[in-house]
């Protein structure tokens, strides 16, 4: 009864809707940030759906976001309302999270030319909620704040230029009164940055570049890197050939984590430009780097460049899960970063010290990771020489895992990893920098990795540093995942299967054949009817699946930056789509 009364008050009083996401994210009925919480765990304490009953799941309702491009967004659920962003043209829909009834939509006038500037389909990875507003990015470099109740535009801030190759695809993080946004365009020679905006008015509070002079990177007195190669003045200029840093990339198109205890944000930067490493001798700082920054000022606290002088497009924009784990007998605040380069990094988030870096899939381009130096031991036999076709590089450019986020269960103490299993041939050529056009200089041909499979859903024991179980999938697993206290984990496949598995052993509990392949992020929440729901956008695309929704020729392996070869059979199993799928147990059934 008390609960009902509270619910009534929440719904009745509009003022009460404007809640801080710091408290809302601890309420598992909700899903207020793409990553569920500041720590990016994607773990829900909801436990209605279990291995015992998941086989009885049903489709509760569906909804089309009306754009048949890759749907990578995580829906949000706030006080009974679901908010979902579609791929370009980035409409935002508000739906009753229980019934699917549409409340409103917001349609921004996104510049159509931005479609030609986005490297890998015209995706959007979702929104953030805080204090009565939904924040998200449009492909043409606008961050918008929308009144969560009315759908009215509160503010719009333009942060970049498509004529300079910039786009916005990431889900911003709203935290501590600010919206943190990073730009995309690592294939366009952009000058990557993170920008903090004031949640109330959209004004830029600070901007920190990934490359350039220390003052632009916000490296100052407070910067205390752990490893010697990060110490020195203006490394963001001096680790590049003359002037090349200006078109050096370092986008921030992935995930931003926030630690309220220390008021620090953590995020990784993307690849250096161009892909052709022969044009940029040196470490190319601070690309493929994890940064810790003060959330209020942007000041850099430490930085670990995971892949100095990246040669294969191993962005390190992947999520950083903020966990407290036992390290050498002591509980330490750590950051777990499932690296695109194929190493599972466990890093002290106070100091930047790398405690461990273990391979979690086939890796031939890096022999091992040197924890003393904080640098990879590259396999020199696979160094890209100009004009030479280098074969057998594993992982391929999308890495062992790309943007698709993992989930961590404190119950099983396992990290659930959706990822791909691909290798590649790679031939470099001289690229000219022409602003607003691609800056790549590499021709890529990807193919299935050893064992005749292309994707995997794996459970990794972080402290035990081992892969406990794995499910091989025909295609790369390009969705995120969610894990719950009911001990289920959820993901989708590009060949249109929505899957619920037992979080303990990976056993398949439920699957459903959807309209289009999955590349989105599943979430779970509780409806006003008390039932637990699982939602995931169907709609194949993104880098991995653009072949199936866009005019790309499956007979030319080098298409889609080389991804075509690895998925050339995809158009025979799916086309593009736009359907939000929502599942629940049957009404009235005992859980």
């Amino acid at each position, binding site marked *: 009864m008390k609960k009902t009364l509270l619910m009534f008050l929440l719904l009745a009083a509009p003022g009460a809707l404007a809640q801080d996401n710091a408290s809302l994210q601890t309420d598992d009925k909700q899903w207020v940030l793409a990553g569920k919480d500041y720590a990016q765990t994607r773990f829900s304490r909801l436990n209605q759906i279990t291995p015992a009953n998941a086989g009885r799941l049903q489709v509760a309702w569906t909804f089309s976001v009306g754009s048949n491009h890759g749907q990578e967004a995580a829906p949000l659920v706030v006080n009974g309302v679901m908010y979902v962003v579609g791929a370009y043209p980035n409409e935002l829909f508000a739906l009753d999270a229980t019934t699917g009834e549409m409340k409103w939509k917001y349609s921004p006038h996104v510049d*159509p*030319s931005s*479609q*030609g*500037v986005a*490297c*890998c389909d015209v995706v959007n990875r979702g929104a953030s909620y805080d204090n009565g507003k939904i924040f998200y990015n449009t492909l043409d470099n606008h961050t918008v704040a929308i009144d969560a109740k009315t759908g009215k535009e509160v503010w719009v801030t333009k942060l970049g230029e498509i004529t300079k190759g910039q786009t916005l695809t990431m889900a911003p993080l709203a935290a501590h009164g600010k919206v943190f946004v990073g730009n995309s365009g690592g294939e366009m020679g952009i000058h990557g940055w993170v920008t903090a905006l004031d949640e109330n008015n959209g004004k830029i509070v600070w901007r920190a570049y990934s490359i350039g002079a220390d003052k632009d990177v916000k490296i100052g007195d407070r910067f205390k890197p752990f490893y010697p190669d990060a110490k020195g003045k203006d490394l963001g200029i001096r680790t590049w050939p003359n002037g090349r840093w200006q078109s050096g990339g370092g986008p921030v198109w992935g995930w931003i984590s926030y630690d309220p205890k220390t008021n620090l944000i953590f995020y990784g930067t993307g690849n250096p430009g161009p892909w052709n490493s022969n044009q940029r001798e040196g470490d190319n700082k601070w690309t493929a780097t994890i940064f810790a920054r003060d959330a209020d000022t942007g000041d850099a606290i430490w930085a670990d460049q995971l892949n100095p002088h990246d040669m294969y497009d191993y962005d390190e924009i992947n999520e950083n899960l903020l966990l407290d784990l036992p390290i050498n007998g002591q509980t330490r605040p750590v950051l777990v970063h499932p690296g695109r380069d194929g190493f599972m990094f466990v890093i002290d988030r106070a100091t930047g010290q790398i405690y461990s870096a*273990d391979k979690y*899939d*086939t*890796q*031939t381009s890096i*022999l091992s990771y040197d924890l003393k130096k904080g640098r990879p*031991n590259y*396999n020199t036999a*696979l160094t890209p020489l100009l004009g030479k*076709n280098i*074969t057998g590089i594993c992982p391929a450019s999308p890495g062992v895992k790309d943007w698709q986020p993992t989930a961590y269960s404190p119950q099983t103490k396992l990290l659930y990893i959706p990822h791909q299993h*691909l*290798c590649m*041939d790679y*031939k470099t050529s001289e*690229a000219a920098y*022409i602003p607003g*056009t691609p*800056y*790549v200089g590499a*021709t890529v*041909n*990807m*193919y299935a*990795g*050893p064992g005749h499979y292309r994707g995997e859903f794996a459970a990794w024991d972080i402290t035990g540093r*081992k*892969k*406990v*179980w794995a*499910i*091989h999938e025909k295609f790369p697993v390009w969705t995120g995942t969610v894990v719950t206290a009911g001990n289920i984990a959820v993901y989708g496949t590009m060949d249109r299967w929505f*899957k619920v*598995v037992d979080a303990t*052993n990976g*056993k398949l509990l439920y*699957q459903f054949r959807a309209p289009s392949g999955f590349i989105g992020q599943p979430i779970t929440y509780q409806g006003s009817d008390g039932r637990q729901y699982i939602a995931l956008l169907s709609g194949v695309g993104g880098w991995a699946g*653009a072949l199936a929704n866009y005019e*790309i*020729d*499956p*007979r*030319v*392996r*080098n*298409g*889609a930056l080389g991804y*075509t*070869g690895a998925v050339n*059979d995809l*158009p*025979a*199993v799916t086309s593009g789509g736009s359907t939000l799928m929502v599942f629940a147990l049957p009404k009235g059934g005992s859980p």
Partner: protein
Amino acid sequence: MNRFLWIIIGIVIVIVAVVVLGISGVLMPGKGSGPNLASGYSGLIAPEKLLRVPVSGIYPGGNPRGLNPHMENPLKDDPDAAARGMKDFDNFNCSGCHMGNGGGGMGPALSNHVWIYRESPANIYLSIAQGRSAGMPAFGAMLPDRTIWELVAYIQNLSDDPGHAFGVTTSATPDVPPREQVPVGQIQSPTPWKYTEPMPPNGEKNGSGSEPPDAPLPPGAEPAPQPQHLVTH
């Protein structure tokens, strides 16, 4: 009334086309904007002729009335034009969007018979010079006229797909195994459709089966972890 409306729309389209062509430097070489603006425009095709190339295939009243003049690539008898176009295709980052051999990526494929803005050499020329609204940059101010025609020659080759039919069938169980191009890493040619091989199944490396997909682990490398338990669905 309807016919009157269409005439008005037609006039508006022509005005817009003149303005766009003017801005892109096709009609007014050397005039107006920056120093690069079509400075290399050598008039291989008379501008007033290009102006009559429509991007639409619908003519109000059904009569093109002088639109769509017959026009071949002025470099069609130059045997090296496509090879130079292939270099330009990389040098000006066309391959960054349309990818090696024009397989498509950020921009649409050029390796087949699908044309969003029509397929005549003049249409391809104008798409490059003017750009297109879904993200194709307007290269008219950057590239000399001759370079654009070289690109057109190369793109004509790229699209010279041997399997020319009204529609394309995509099947998980094809009657005849599909063929794919030999990757650019092995052969880069101005006529890529001359080099094909069977498409291997399951995203594997090549159709000849001569090379195993299993990448050998280099000496000194830490091995990849094996799961303690492999689950099959």
